[in-house]
């Protein structure tokens, strides 16, 4: 029995539905994001001036990386003339058919092709239709992409990028809405990114091109229309960031859960009683930024970790095991993991299985031992 208290995932309120997710604001250190959809992109140097959507941030990072290095190309189904996900739109006109390639339904081969290309110094960006499909490319990702550097003692490197969008609230049911982080979490030499904001999405994708190992890029489509600012180039894009400073409790999450945590923090700050939440957005979930996690956990002494997957894998248990290493007096309370119940995601009422803004708020209050507040609806 783990020593950490188990917080079961409560049913979320009805309003925490897919439609509402488009209102989620970005997790960003650069200030409060402006809700401007479709605003013109910020200058190419990445310095902040305009708000962009999450999807545009990914598209921009991809385009700029391809402009910067001719030895980069995109593989996927319907990524060319018809850009099914929209992220690759226009790339075929800019870079030609050699570098933007529509593939047959052969995901395992697509990833394997990227591995072989990496052996000859090229970086492939593989677009999977959605993250669940990573299952059929598992061998190519694990035995191929991840192991090459290790097996050849660094003679060969594999800076391959697999974009595996999480199809949250797309009504694709149990085979089309999964978070696949934990499937890959124990694979060494595989970076995994789960951007929560436009800034994270842009800089984590740019950074992936510089890595000697492959990156599994788990963008979340339910964040696609959210807007925010791409900040200046961080010293190290893979470090976790404090998306909101707060003194009472530290909430650690990645991707959509980090975006939700930030929104929950805003409600909790309004009280009563007002609770000041420290939100850590991981961005890179593998390798974990242990230094930031430990520092921010101790800064408040109370930790809530939120993840969309069940509690038997993923960054939640990994962070709990990190915190277990702290001296017994380092934290005021045992860390709590808010996770999904051990179930698949249904076609209908998908949101019921997932941690919600209300559930995060409730878990924070329980951590602090304050009375259960009324369900707080966003304006």
């Amino acid at each position, binding site marked *: 029995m783990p020593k950490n208290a188990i917080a079961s995932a409560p049913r979320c309120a009805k309003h925490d539905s897919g439609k509402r997710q488009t209102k989620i604001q970005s997790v960003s250190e650069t200030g409060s994001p402006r809700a401007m959809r479709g605003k013109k992109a910020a200058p190419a140097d990445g310095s902040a001036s305009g708000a962009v959507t999450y999807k545009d941030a990914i598209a921009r990072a991809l385009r700029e990386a391809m402009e910067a290095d001719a*030895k980069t*190309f995109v593989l996927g189904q319907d990524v060319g003339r018809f850009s099914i996900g929209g992220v690759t739109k226009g790339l075929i006109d800019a870079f030609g058919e*050699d*570098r933007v*390639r529509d*593939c*047959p339904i*052969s995901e*395992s*081969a*697509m*990833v*394997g*092709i*990227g*591995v*072989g*290309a*990496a*052996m*000859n*110094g*090229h970086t*492939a960006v593989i677009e999977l239709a959605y993250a669940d499909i990573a299952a059929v490319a598992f*061998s*190519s990702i694990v*035995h*191929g992409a991840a192991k*090459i550097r*290790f*097996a*050849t*003692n660094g*003679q*060969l490197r594999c800076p391959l990028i697999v974009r595996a969008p999480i199809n949250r609230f797309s009504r694709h049911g149990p085979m089309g809405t999964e978070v696949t982080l934990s499937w890959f979490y124990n694979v060494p030499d595989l970076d995994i990114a789960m951007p929560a904001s436009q800034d994270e999405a842009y800089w984590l994708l740019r950074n992936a091109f510089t890595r000697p190992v492959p990156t599994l890029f788990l963008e979340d489509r339910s964040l696609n229309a959210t807007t925010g600012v791409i900040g200046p180039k961080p010293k190290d894009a893979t470090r976790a960031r404090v998306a909101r400073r707060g003194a009472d409790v530290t909430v650690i999450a990645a991707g959509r859960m980090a975006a939700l945590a930030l929104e929950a923090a805003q409600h909790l700050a309004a009280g009563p009683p007002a609770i000041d939440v420290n939100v850590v957005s991981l961005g890179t979930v593998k390798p974990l930024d242990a230094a930031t996690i430990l520092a921010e956990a101790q800064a408040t002494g109370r930790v809530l970790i939120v993840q969309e997957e069940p509690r038997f894998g993923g960054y939640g248990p990994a962070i709990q095991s990190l915190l277990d290493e702290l001296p017994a007096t380092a934290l005021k309370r045992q860390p709590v993991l808010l996770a999904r119940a051990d179930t698949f995601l249904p076609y209908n009422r998908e949101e019921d299985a997932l941690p919600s803004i209300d559930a995060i708020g409730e878990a924070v209050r329980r951590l602090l031992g304050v009375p259960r507040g009324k369900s707080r609806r966003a304006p």
Partner: protein
Amino acid sequence: MTGPRNDRPAGAEPADFYRLMLRTRLFEEYCMRLRKDGAVLGNTYPCLGQEALGAAGLALTPGDALFPSYRSRAIVFGKGATLEQHFRELIGDPGAEQAGREVFHHAAFPRLGVMPSSSMIGGWAPTAAGYALTQQIERAGNVTVCVIGDGSFGAGDLHETLNIVGVWKLPFVLMVENNGYQVSASWNRMRVQRAIEPYVAPYGFVTRPVDGNNAFDVFHSMAWARAEALAGRPAMLDCHTYRMGGYSSHFGEPRTGINAELAEWRLRDPIDFMAEWLERHGGHDRKALAALRQQEERAVDAAWRKAKDAADSARKA
């Protein structure tokens, strides 16, 4: 028209074919002894009887990439890897190129264009296709050779790859070590056709059956396949051969009822075939052939000692 098969290859020395095959067989036998004596821990996958396939390596250029199977020692030697390099990988020497991280039959020598092999049978073919794709994008004038056993035809990834290679017309050569067995199981229990052509041609490959025990045919066929692949016609060589030994040093001979086959294929031994040719047409008498054998025996033994000394002194240091 698929060009010559048995002619003496222009620009190549037949005695080199003989030496390459001898070296391969002596190396494989040496490794089996080392394993039996406990001098090394790793298992090997001998290519006994399939040594003529090494001539394919001699038909490639340094810029061509080779993705070997785990039973492709002859071709890897043909591409330029040395005995000592192999022994160091077999030992798992921390100073070797793989530093003891990967089994020796997967070892890569990228500077020679020798890429890693994999345990994922058929699952490695896309990797070779990816390398070929970059050669096509770079208009490099080079090809990628992907070597597989005929047992790989059960693997889905291989079929995904062949389809893509055909559609994209990659500079890709599929070389099939068609020895008719998947560990213990004969081909007719694993697929309907012995020949590979019916499986591959519909994907858009030009194909050629090859006498895999005739080094000249292998050499000419690879030269042909290389030219075809560079001209936008991915090529497949169906190299008919036979495994004259066990599957690996893990266990004894897994096949049963093969005595007649062994006797038949012993008459087609690729090294004997080349010795006979050298005697008849190549100006080598028996004494000269014996001298070549002795040279290769010494080379294998010297390479092992050198590799072992290097590993021992690294361990002491």
